[in-house]
């Protein structure tokens, strides 16, 4: 029981950084890679491969699933010399980005984790959150502020 909770937590943590890596730009990953103090060698378990994911929606937003349409996705799997494997799935067709994302996923499962988290994952995640906030705040600026017109009580 204890073990399955630990696994679930480990998976959730890994899912979080994999999501950050999937949404990173190639430039971000490339520059993080080039500034790494020690760049490990790695083998390709699965060379970068581009394919499709069928995206599903739900009828009425909450009902039975249906197939909405496909999107492009690129995946990759690598193995570090110590045997740790890293995997990536990222929207789009950028194979180099998928490769780097897989390498960082592998490194995040090694003793390098703290360093990669603070040096790579956190800054990219912060940039992504800033972008989301800015989009949302621009939308928020178009929010309608209704006021009720009551005779003799118009807003000043």
């Amino acid at each position, binding site marked *: 029981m204890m073990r399955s909770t630990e696994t679930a937590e480990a998976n959730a943590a890994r899912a979080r950084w994999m999501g950050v890596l999937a949404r990173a730009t190639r430039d971000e990953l490339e520059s993080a890679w080039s500034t790494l103090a020690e760049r490990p060698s790695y083998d390709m378990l699965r060379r970068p491969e581009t394919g499709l994911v069928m995206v599903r929606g739900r009828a009425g*937003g909450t009902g039975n699933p249906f197939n909405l349409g496909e999107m492009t996705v690129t995946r990759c799997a690598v193995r570090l010399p110590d045997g740790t494997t890293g995997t990536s799935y990222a929207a789009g067709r950028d194979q180099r980005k998928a490769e780097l994302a897989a390498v960082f996923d592998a490194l995040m499962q090694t003793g390098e984790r703290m360093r990669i988290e603070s040096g790579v994952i956190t800054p990219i995640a912060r940039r992504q959150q800033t972008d989301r906030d800015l989009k949302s705040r621009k939308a928020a600026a178009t929010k309608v502020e209704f006021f009720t017109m009551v005779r003799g009580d118009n807003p000043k």
Partner: protein
Amino acid sequence: MYVAVKGGERAILNSHELIAETRRGDTSVPEVSTRQISEQLGLAVDRVMAEGSIYDRDLAALAVKQAQGDLVEAIFLLRAYRTTLPRLAVSEPVDTAQMLVRRRVSAAYKDIPGGQVLGPTYDYTHRLLDFALAAEEGVGEPEAPVGEAPLDAGMPHVADILDYEGLIEPEIPDEDASEPFDLTREPMSFPADRDQRLQNLARGDEGFVLALGYSTQRGFGGTHPFAGEIRMGEVSVEIVPEELGFAIDIGDVVVSECHMINQFEGSAERPPQFTRGYGLSFGHNERKVMAMALVDRALRAREFGEAAVYPAQDEEFVLYHADNVEAAGFVSHLKLPHYVDFQAELGLIRKLRREFEERQQKDAAE
């Protein structure tokens, strides 16, 4: 007798060269880049992604450029490209309640949790040509105002409000439902369930779906709708790769969604309730999802025991004709050489004419 027709090769090759030159246009004008198309003709790209049924802005922009802006041709190009790619996974259903909302309006309620958010819309523009856009110096770098705080994270659907009171038919997944129908792998089949119909409409031709939706408003299958909610923004796409066994995000897609609230159904056992029509599409395609929601409701006639007497309620009519790649293909095939068929028709009509004239001469003689 079979007559081989040759001699078209040179003409075809030269026509390829001519289309390349025509597409490029006046070479004293700078060539447009796919990046410019993706950024500055974004709604054309959105339509091509929705009906081409592949979410990939770069590919769709390339298709728009290659097709010289002919969107139906661009959609065809994207569909053809699709066949070159393997399918790696199927996503979990996207959760539109968790959307990063860029636009969200309701015509049914004024005050809704999260508010009425107009977002980037042409609705309140004057529809007067803006010659500033044609000015030599361009538009510069317009900057939109930034609100003090982001919108509420996770905006509930307006339909949930009615659902809470039990005033609208519930929309909950059927645990026993089989895998959703997939038009890219199975041929159309009838009677069609809602999953097949929604997939067909989501990739269906906007013009066709719009006209059908319009027909229901004009009395050809009345649906008496209210736009309960229209929203547009980013949703994350989640898959569960087999080798991992847990869900991961692969990125975000922009989708548009429309909930139409329609007039009541009820029976001796069931209290009267509003009914739903639903539209969902890749990209910013508001007109499309509104029309889709109207047609979705019209196509549910059988489910509600309504007589399906109008075109928009006839699922075979709608589903068989909604796809513009198929439609354009069949109409366009008439351009292909039909020389032999036509010779046969010519022979037949000459014979009929001869017989007719002979009959007339005979009648005149008598």
